[in-house]
């Protein structure tokens, strides 16, 4: 068989990752627009929120595919992001907040710890992560932007990795 299930997984992941890259770019642009006052946060959140779950589900979906294909290394590479998604969307709500106490004398002033921690999902009746009332907070904006860039980098790297994986599996199998 020239075309194994693993190769199929890689191919699928390749396509989906391309989609995720677009999601990440969209995300980055959206937050940049917010920062530069181009868009109203309410509109922006309304467009961003519906994209959050699809992104997470797509990623989850090909993680499951890799699991089925027994591609353990690839799965391991993806697990941290999967865990992050679960944490971001579900767990951080229920986790008892970490005590941010900064020891006296440390460089970070305690009052910074007094700032809000909006990283947990706000009380929302619709799916999504972003709350228009808190999103303009400088910390959150910075966090979301950073998150976008990191994800973009991750998806880009994994895109090439999947490409390699796809070619590798496609090539190897004929010989077996």
């Amino acid at each position, binding site marked *: 068989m020239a075309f194994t299930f693993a190769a199929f997984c890689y191919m699928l992941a390749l396509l989906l990752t391309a989609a995720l890259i677009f999601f990440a770019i969209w995300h980055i642009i959206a937050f940049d627009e917010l920062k530069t006052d181009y868009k109203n946060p309410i509109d922006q959140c309304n467009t961003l929120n519906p994209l959050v779950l699809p992104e997470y589900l797509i990623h989850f979906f090909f993680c499951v595919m890799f699991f089925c294909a027994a591609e353990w290394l690839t799965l391991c590479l993806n697990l941290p992001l999967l865990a992050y998604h679960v944490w971001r969307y579900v767990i951080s709500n229920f986790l*008892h*907040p970490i005590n941010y106490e900064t020891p006296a004398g440390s460089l970070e002033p*305690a009052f910074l710890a007094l700032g809000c*921690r909006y990283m947990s999902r706000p*009380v929302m009746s619709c799916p999504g992560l972003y709350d228009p*009332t808190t999103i303009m*907070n400088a*910390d959150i*904006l910075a966090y979301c932007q950073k998150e976008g860039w990191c994800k973009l980098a991750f998806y880009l790297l994994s895109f090439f990795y999947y490409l390699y994986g796809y070619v590798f599996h496609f090539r190897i199998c004929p010989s077996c």
Partner: protein
Amino acid sequence: MSTAGFNSQNGTGTGQTYANGPSQNPVALQQLPGVSYSMTHQPIYNPMQAKAPSPPGPGPYPSAPYQPVPPVSSYQPGPPLTSYPSSLGQPLLPRPPLSGPPSHTPPQSASPSPGPRMPPAQATPPPPAVSSSSYYPNPQQPMAPAWQYNTAPPPMGPPTSISAPPRGPVANHVNPAASLAEPRPPSSAPYSTAPPPRVSQSVTQPPGPGMPPTSMLGYSQPGTAPPPMNPMVPNAYQPGRAAYGPPPTGPPPIMKPAPPPTGPPVASATPPPPKGDGAVAGNGPQASNSYNHVDNKMAGLAQPGPPGRHLGHYPSLPPGYQNTSAPHGTSSMHPAMQAATQPYTQAPQPYQQPPGGPGPAQLSPSLAAMSLQSSTPEALRVVNLLQERNLLPPTPVPAPTPCLPQDLQKINCNPEVFRCTLTSIPQTQSLLNKAKMPLGLLLHPFKDLSQLPVVTSSTIVRCRSCRTYINPFVSFLDQRRWKCNLCYRVNDVPEEFMYNPVSRSYGEPHKRPEVQNATIEFIAPSEYMLRPPQPAVYLFVLDVSHNAVETGYLNVFCQSLLDNINALPGDSRTKVGFITFDSTIHFYNLQEGLSQPQMLIVSDIEDIFLPTPDSLLVNLNECKELVQDLLKSLPTLFGKTMETQSALGSALQAAFKLLSPTGGRMSVFQTQLPNLGVGALQSREDPNQRASAKDIQHLSPATDFYKKLALDCSGQQVAVDLFLLSAQYCDLASLGCISRYSAGSVYYYPSYHHQHSPAQVERFQKDLKRYLTRKIGFEAVMRIRCTKGLSIHTFHGNFFVRSTDLLSLPNVNPDAGFAVQMSIEDNLDDMQVVSFQAALLYTSSKGERRIRVHTLCLPVVNSLSDIFSGADVQAMTGLLACMAVDRSVTASLSDARDAMTNAAIDSLTSYRQSVLTVQQPGLLAPACLRLFPLYILALLKQKAFRTGTSTRLDERVFAMCQLKYQPLLYAMLMIHPALYRIDDLTDEGALNINERTIPQPRVLQLSVEKLSREGAFLMDTGTVMYLWIGRNCHPNFLTQVLGVPNYAAVPENLHLLPELDTAESQRTRAFIGWLRDQRPFYPSLHVIRDESQLKANFMQNMIEDRTASALSYYEFLLHLQQQISK
């Protein structure tokens, strides 16, 4: 009427506008007389400042208590007493009329060494002077000796003239002033610039930020009033500030074309020596006197005579603590002490230590070190918190003054409107992190102002790149070009701007009102309108379920609205509407032509619709009779209702639909948990957990329904104000969102009942009156700009943040405060000063589009010690409180509490490590932060953040809302209430406002030790006042003020003082009335006895004392010290 004073119509008069350009309306122009154009001085608004002139001393540290120290006392132990009439109930010296004869008034006599050195004229004070001193057989005598004494020590030179001026009823000081004039050193020249009527004051009154002469004068002689917009910086004050100005390391700000002489500090004006001598020499004898000084907390420092001070120590303190006042310690402390008494004049002292002063030889080694320390500005004077017990100034704490060149400082924004936690901005973020103090702004942008220049102009001059409004801190490169102070772009001066409507001259752009006033209002041209200015629209949404009818609030509401219906701000377009709801929604058709209001009931609450879209909101003027009919019949209409459910969510949706085409204000009255339809809530509070729970749950909303609705409202320019009158849990945490994000306000009357809680009813009535009649701005936005390099981190308050620096405020009201956390993004290396500008664009109730602009300018510094010396402890506390509220909601309450404690630890640690050069044992703080631990402790014990005490969840959440929403002035009262002893009020040092004499008792520390059974004490917590009557209270007070024969006859639920025709009663009522007049809301008064239920509330505010669940102040300090030395 507490509210009366607040309805100021700022700038609405036509006479107040500036015409721009030659072609303007000549009438308007003629009304502008020179400088004082268009400013009307309304005395009512001078809140805290006004209080300043309290009897004993000028500054936050009165010099009076201090004065006894000097040798005087050795001759004449008596005189000092006169300044404090404390212990006896006897009325002291009647306050002489301001305009009275030039002879001085008693308080002066008690005062300082310096003044006294006056000619004989002084030496013969009028007899009536002193009555209080129990020590003296002859009450009349004490005065004279004091003066005699004063003449005794000749060596104290003329220079002292300024340093220790007496400050009672200052205006009478003519003689001293004259005599002083001669010896005055040249450098003090600025004093002489004071306008003639004020001369006496400016000379005799020690410059203290809090009590500018102007503010006092403002009351007594409104006409003569002071430099526009800057009551804080009266002339008299400047010299001191100048000295303080050039920080040791900081570069002198040079921004204006003509930098003022900062240098030749008035140093010469404050010669410490006399006092130093006094302290050392006079200590012994002093001790015997200290009995009377018990109340003078400041005095405790200066003249802590060992034997006498039975009040001076904590109830259960380690011995070391109590000993602090040993004569030796204090005497050597002295230089520092002196500093305390004169915060601003003191600075020069170090440079000029005269030979006669207490030499180091006289000081113990550690104190010698201290005196070295004191060669820094007053704000940095080292205070050992563990030793100095009496840190609380007797008068409200004034805002620190940024050290800017005088001409900038003079026009800087009023600190009540705009202030910063650090009046010296650090150059870099890393420096800020090192200082470990929060950087932020506190704003009260729509405050009712007594003087507000209004400019009408077809072009509003703004920077072309950053859109900053032209302000006093821009620089003019030449006549035709100005440089923006925020982005540094060079802009052209438009032709019209060259003409100055005030002086009617051409070619002086820098004399325009825009460039002369840090707070100014523009009438905006049509470019500033997205749509035609909206009319004033008021919609009232009333709960009429069984529960609501039970509370009886409808009567009060309808009556208030009937009374004030003509006072609602608005014009001929004003519209009103009413919706009532229980399990159904009732609309009222008030269309013109109907004979009576028509009620339309919509029971489909799942899918709400408007039965007749166009006749529910009607023009008030056209349909006034119908509206009045409705208001008269409403209370009875639902008298028999048995409906217990409440469909608040649907009612809000309906109201939103009704208002969304125009925008406006929605006032919602709710008395129970909404339990039907959309937005229904469940009770989340477990009463048993109130006290025991380690962490408080449910501070965040249960549903986002209200938040989403609020955002929709915000988008349609609708603000929702929530009145919550309920005995049960209402989930304010969820309901409050409706106001929070739509820039509304929340009022909460726990356990409101028309019969059972008369005090609440009264408060509700007064609040409503204020609410209905206060100024209002519609469809507003506020943008906060700051100099390049700074950026806004977080906003606090009620609004929706529309972009990084823009707040959307569907309504803005004069009682709303905002806080802004700032961060430093780029280094501010090459800047001397930075500026912040808040611009509020709103539609007035008359349909005018207006822009109110406030600009604040602050110096940039690059050393930690300068940052510390500029810290504004009240602003920091206010900002930390806002941050802590956020943190409690998003993380947990215990987190927030820890973080607040850490904030105190951090800043003090940083101070100790980075600024202090000489390490000493103890908990050291710079003088400007000396109250920081106290305020932090007060926050920890505040209703919002306390643990271990049973607190209803709604009350806690409400306290949190208040902390974020109240302007700093009022928030500080909530955090640290003021305690006064009022059974012995005297007219000494009293204010005189509108022919009324307002006594000014001193602020006491919040500790049971300050209470005495013989007295009566008033605690002012902002929204509530408690009048605690001691068991053995002087019968005189009971009969003359309360009108009861004895203690047992004091009624249980007294909340009104009887209007008796006695001097004591008048004084007491004048004082309480004056406190109430200063704030927009109405504090209810509760008279409590020892066994009253409310006593617990009263005692909970004794924040310096230990409670079952919280540390005492001293223990808290020890905790801090332990953490710091770790």
